[in-house]
């Protein structure tokens, strides 16, 4: 039971929007589709919803082929990036609108509208018009409209993107609680790795219309199968360094030498690419085994209690994310420390050979 996508392709003219998508979503599952802008997230959601038809492939819902079934006949609900509500209807009528077609009794509709409104803290706003509400309240209304229907499939297309930071945090927490109480399939797209990690559940990493990796979200985060996945699923983007292994020593860049141990010791000599997440680089020594190297400061972004220091190591750009305020001057040379077990090691084809694994300091 659940939703299965079989060999979905979507081409528009000569452009490939989606290529050979094979996915399964179980009933009651929470799913994140993570990808950058234009990676095909919205195209995929539109096809799942039935708003667009795939060029090839089938969509199976609870054992039935629904590929050609019109949107109106499918039991789905969708929330958009923009705050979409009926402008001339009150919040109450907006939330009730998906139920009006279903032939429910007035009392039943009233009960469900009020329950959905309560879940999203809209009880006091039911008599107002959407234009009289703040952006956050408008999006809450749109979410309530999606929830009131009890659809088997709940699609959310970057719903929090247009909200300010505070509201986003707030709604993110509430949404998780709401999703956990339902048994519909939830599919939620985002461009932000942090948001994906907070939601947990399962993840689909999408890039240029192709599925790169799927699996439980934390597992994919800790073992990104390819360099591309590591890139999409790291914020700030993961740091790369060309590397080589010889005689049990990992040589990073020109002159960083780290003795290999633990999970890395079985790697065979050869050429590699090493990925290091910016939070695994530090500006001060945390452990006696840490390796120190020098790099030149390009920019310091101080974000409250954290500093993102952009560095140049030889020709390679690096970002260090560290707790504390480090107002280094541009152009100064500073010491950077890297723990010997924070490496994502990829072979030359970009396939993961070893990763730090979960339980690392972060």
């Amino acid at each position, binding site marked *: 039971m659940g939703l299965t996508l079989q060999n979905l392709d979507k081409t528009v003219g000569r452009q490939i929007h989606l290529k050979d998508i094979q996915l399964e979503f179980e009933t009651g599952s929470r799913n994140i589709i993570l990808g950058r802008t234009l990676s095909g997230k919205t195209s995929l959601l*539109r096809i799942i*919803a039935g*708003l667009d038809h795939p060029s090839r492939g089938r969509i199976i819902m609870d054992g039935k082929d629904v590929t050609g079934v019109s*949107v*109106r006949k499918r039991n*789905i*609900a*969708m929330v*958009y*990036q*923009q705050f*979409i509500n*009926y*402008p*001339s*209807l*009150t919040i*109450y*009528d907006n939330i009730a*609108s*998906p139920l009006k*077609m279903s032939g429910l009794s007035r009392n039943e509709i009233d009960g469900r509208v009020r329950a959905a409104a309560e879940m999203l803290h809209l009880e006091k706003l039911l*008599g107002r*018009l959407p234009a009289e509400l703040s952006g956050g309240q408008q999006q809450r209304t749109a979410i309530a*409209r999606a929830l009131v229907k009890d659809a088997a499939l709940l699609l959310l297309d970057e719903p929090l993107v247009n909200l300010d930071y505070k509201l986003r945090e707030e709604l993110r927490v509430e949404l998780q609680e709401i999703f956990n109480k339902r048994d519909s399939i939830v599919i939620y797209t985002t461009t932000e790795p942090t948001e994906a990690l907070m939601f947990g559940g399962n993840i689909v990493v999408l890039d240029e219309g192709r599925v790169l990796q799927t699996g439980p979200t934390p597992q994919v985060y800790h073992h990104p199968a390819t360099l591309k996945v590591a890139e999409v699923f790291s914020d700030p983007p993961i740091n790369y360094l060309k590397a080589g292994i010889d005689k049990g020593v990992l040589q990073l860049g020109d002159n960083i030498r780290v003795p290999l141990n633990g999970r890395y010791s079985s790697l065979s000599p050869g050429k590699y690419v090493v990925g290091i997440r910016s939070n695994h680089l530090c500006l001060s020594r945390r452990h006696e085994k840490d390796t120190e190297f020098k790099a030149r400061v390009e920019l310091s972004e101080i974000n409250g209690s954290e500093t993102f220091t952009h560095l140049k190591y030889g020709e390679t750009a690096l970002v260090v994310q560290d707790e504390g305020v480090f107002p280094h001057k541009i152009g100064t040379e500073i010491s950077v420390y890297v723990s010997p077990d924070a490496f994502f090691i990829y072979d030359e084809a970009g396939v993961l050979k070893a990763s730090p694994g979960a339980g690392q300091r972060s």
Partner: protein
Amino acid sequence: MEKWASNKAWFLVLPVFVIVAFSAILPLMTVVNYSVQDIFGPGQSVFVGTEFFKQVLADSRLHEALLRQFLFSALVLLIEIPLGVLIALAMPRKGVWVSACLVTLALPLLIPWNVIGTIWIIFTRPDIGLLGSTINHLGLAFDHTASPMDAWVTVMLMEVWHWTPLVVLLAYAGLRSIPEAYYQAAKIDGASSWAIFRYIQLPKMRGVLTIAVLLRFMDSFLIYAEPFVLTGGGPGNATTFLSIYLVKIALGQFDLGPAAAFSIIYFLIILLFSFIFYQALQNVGKGGRS
């Protein structure tokens, strides 16, 4: 400091104030001046108070013209607004045909108003006009110079042909500004195309339609050139609208005093109705729980 700043602001507004004074306020005051004085020649005038207003308001021909004018404007709004919205809905949303449609529609708007009248005189002539002779060949007697009804039909046709495109352009612009996601969301809700029109397209067009209604009301209420060229207000007084009658009093009979009083009443009627339309359109369909 603050006071100095606000004085400077007044200074900057002054040029606009002077222009508006010369273009609008002073002429209007002249009209007011004419309406309360009987002027025989330079320096020879008698203050008559509201006498001209009383005279004009008691004029039965003016009542007829006013009634005719309301009927005309009502018909214009009732035909042009729904027709314009319908055409806008039927227009393609993208592709090469969009510009073709827009240019074709805009053509009547580019023709000078007096030429419009001439075009329709020829078009509806019973002997050589394409429309006139076609109708007469179908066995229906049609002559806008003889029958009041035919004159009305011709003026209405001309007006609809001339100005519906403006409503279409405004409504089309309003429709184009609705994000695609609204239509998708409505489809997911299972909304019918009527519901999409009623609850998405119409509310989203409120702003442009308000402008369309106001423009069409004011313009049609002031109509002069087209019926003047086409029928000269006739046959009889059948198409003597307010402005045509006003010109007859002012220039035909040279009764400047009554004409000035008439102008002020005319102006106030337009102001009042524009205000009513504006208020009504701002509030219609809002807040009611269905």
